[in-house]
């Protein structure tokens, strides 16, 4: 298990998020914009649908022979003079990176945005051995200054308004009175970071893809910080989930054609960085050492598991942007590293079904996520599957199981069903006025607190049928 179970009930976490006016504003603006940008990007790109099918097929085929593709990748990276490490758990992955940091005498690590290093909680571990991690992606930089964690897979500071960022910078960087102007704030972050790039000994990144045939690690970024991180420090460590390997450069072209469109609505992201091992003789830039850490952490077990399809995920964040739940509560309320619809599946993969007892229900199953997913991951189906697993394993609350088993019995028997209608009609009598119910006690009150409930009709349709014929 990677992360401790969250004990605050989901409902409380969600309610707290709903009460945050700034969060609401920031999420609404950002997700609405992402949705429109994505729609426009694919609207101008008639090949998009076929490429999505193609990308999905590549993922399917690659995962069927994952071991072979990883072997090819390892052989090619080693041929280029790089080192590959395999980590079964988050702890092993951390230890591998820490060992590299200790051995190379690193004092400061610059990082480009990486969910994999978030997943293994690398920053705290680095700090603990005296290596200062510095996030260099603007969004990550903001949340590092705020001592928070990302609330979105590609837009880690999506939950903050520009006003909040101005306040944060003014306070943390001791530059009082900064305006809520993104351009000014970005310039300041750049000034602060420039010096870090030049002094850091370690560069840490994730990887969007690794091309097996050529031993190439691919980073897709927008700010140019990824290039600095992979080329300026003496040592570059990339941490990547094993499922991110793809066979060839031809495959890469397919993914690049849809990734940025799904994520930000860009045709391509500003930088696509291809890293092939350490600096070679005669080259002017690049690290002395290159390491790739291949992270399992529950992934391999799902190759034949119910969450297999979630291994297709490109981490584009499109499913978060369109999710009505995510758009209301943001990423932190989910409680774990990966938020949103896909995040629930990944949380289950990393931390086991008990971690999603409630989270698996943080979806209305509206299906917008599956529609937006560039590789068409059927997220709602797997959420239902997780709910089933939670029930079957006896993790679901007892009271809930009793209610659903009773409901099942009622729905199997027309006699009981009719009886329930009669009882309901009698029981609702004190609460009905004008054919509607404004307040009900206990469990039903969860509905009537904010919504009226229709009353059970004096005669059901089936009771009226005889009059109709």
């Amino acid at each position, binding site marked *: 298990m990677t992360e401790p179970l969250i004990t605050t009930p989901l*409902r409380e976490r969600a309610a707290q998020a*709903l009460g945050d006016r700034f969060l609401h504003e920031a999420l609404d603006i950002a997700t609405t914009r992402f949705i429109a940008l994505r729609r426009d990007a694919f609207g101008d790109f008639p090949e998009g649908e076929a490429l999505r099918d193609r990308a999905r097929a590549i993922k399917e085929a690659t995962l069927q022979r994952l071991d072979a593709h990883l072997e090819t990748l390892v052989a090619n990276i080693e041929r280029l003079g790089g080192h590959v490490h395999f980590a079964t758990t988050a702890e092993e992955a951390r230890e591998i990176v820490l060992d590299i940091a200790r051995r190379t005498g690193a004092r400061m690590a610059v990082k480009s945005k990486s969910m994999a290093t978030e997943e293994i909680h690398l920053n705290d571990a680095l700090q603990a051995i005296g290596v200062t991690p510095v996030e260099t992606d603007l969004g990550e930089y903001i949340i590092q200054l705020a001592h928070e964690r990302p609330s979105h897979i590609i837009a880690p500071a999506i939950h903050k308004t520009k006003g909040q960022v101005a306040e944060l910078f003014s306070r943390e960087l001791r530059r009082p009175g900064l305006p809520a102007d993104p351009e000014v704030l970005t310039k300041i972050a750049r000034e602060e970071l420039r010096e870090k790039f030049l002094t850091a000994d370690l560069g840490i990144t994730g990887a969007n893809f690794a091309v097996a045939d050529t031993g190439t690690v691919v980073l897709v970024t927008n700010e140019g910080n990824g290039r600095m991180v992979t080329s300026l420090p003496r040592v570059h460590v990339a941490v990547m989930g094993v499922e991110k390997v793809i066979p060839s450069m031809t495959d890469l072209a397919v993914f690049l054609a849809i990734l940025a469109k799904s994520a930000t609505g860009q045709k391509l992201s500003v930088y696509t960085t291809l890293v092939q091992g350490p600096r070679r003789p005669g080259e002017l830039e690049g690290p002395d050492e290159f390491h790739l850490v291949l992270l399992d952490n529950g992934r391999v077990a799902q190759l034949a598991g119910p969450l297999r399809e979630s291994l297709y995920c490109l981490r584009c964040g499109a499913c978060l942007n369109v999710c009505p739940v995510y758009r209301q509560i943001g990423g932190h309320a989910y409680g774990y590293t990966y938020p949103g619809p896909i995040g629930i599946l990944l949380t289950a993969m990393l931390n086991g079904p008990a971690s999603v007892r409630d989270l698996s*229900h943080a979806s209305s199953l509206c*299906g*917008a996520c599956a529609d937006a997913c560039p590789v068409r991951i059927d997220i709602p189906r797997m959420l*239902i599957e997780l709910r089933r697993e939670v029930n079957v394993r006896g993790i679901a609350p007892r009271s809930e199981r009793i209610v659903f088993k009773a409901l*099942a019995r009622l729905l*199997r028997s027309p006699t009981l069903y009719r009886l329930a209608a009669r009882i309901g009609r009698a029981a609702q009598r004190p609460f009905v006025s004008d054919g509607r119910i404004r307040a009900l006690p206990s469990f039903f009150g969860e509905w009537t607190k904010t919504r009226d409930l229709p009353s059970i*009709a004096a005669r059901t*349709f089936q009771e009226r049928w005889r009059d109709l014929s």
Partner: protein
Amino acid sequence: MSVSAAAGATPRVALMITCLADMFYPEVGERIVRLLRRLGVEVTLPTGQTCCGLPLFNSGYHDEAAAVAARTVTIFRDAEAVIVPSGSCAWMVKHEYPGLLRGRAEAADAERLAARTWEFSQFLVRRLGRTTFESDVEGPLAYHDSCHLLRGLHEGATPRTLLNNLSGAAVVPLPGSDECCGFGGSFSVRLPEVSTSILERKLANLEASGARCLVACDAGCLMQIRGGLARRNSPLRALHLAEVLKS
């Protein structure tokens, strides 16, 4: 889709009334029956109906859902065509029954039922080829896509065809018409605050649309949206498509 099948013999359909329409919105069922009869369709109501089992299925009680599905399949075994007034229940039957009952005695019947089941608006347009109706309510109207009908059955066209061809009421676009209303079955009471917050967005979009009435093809969405409108004492209404088409 065979429209020409409508010609010739009198079409016969069995109505799957669904639990929500049966208990809460029987008038929707009555209007569907009257409308279909006016169009020359013979309507039957197989006895012993309860619910399609979707609430059990979506909460992960699959053995229990399969038992309910098996009953439903048996009840509708002899029906030539089945018509369902809610997109989500139609989706359950068409999309989930075959998988749920695979390997059981009812498997073949489940496959046949899935192929013969129609959501109400689909049946009118795609099976009967009927697209022009008079409106029974005053416009402007705005259409809300229910999630299972739109993304589950990929049907956004037939309700719009019917509304756009309606005489006597204008139709205006609903911003974010394809966004969830926040109902989601048990989701609406497991996370009621989130469900309500999503609903508020839907209601704000409805108000912004200038429509006086929202139209939907799913009793779940209607329960949620009507519940929200009534609580706010809103003058706006939310109706099932069958309540809009003059029968």
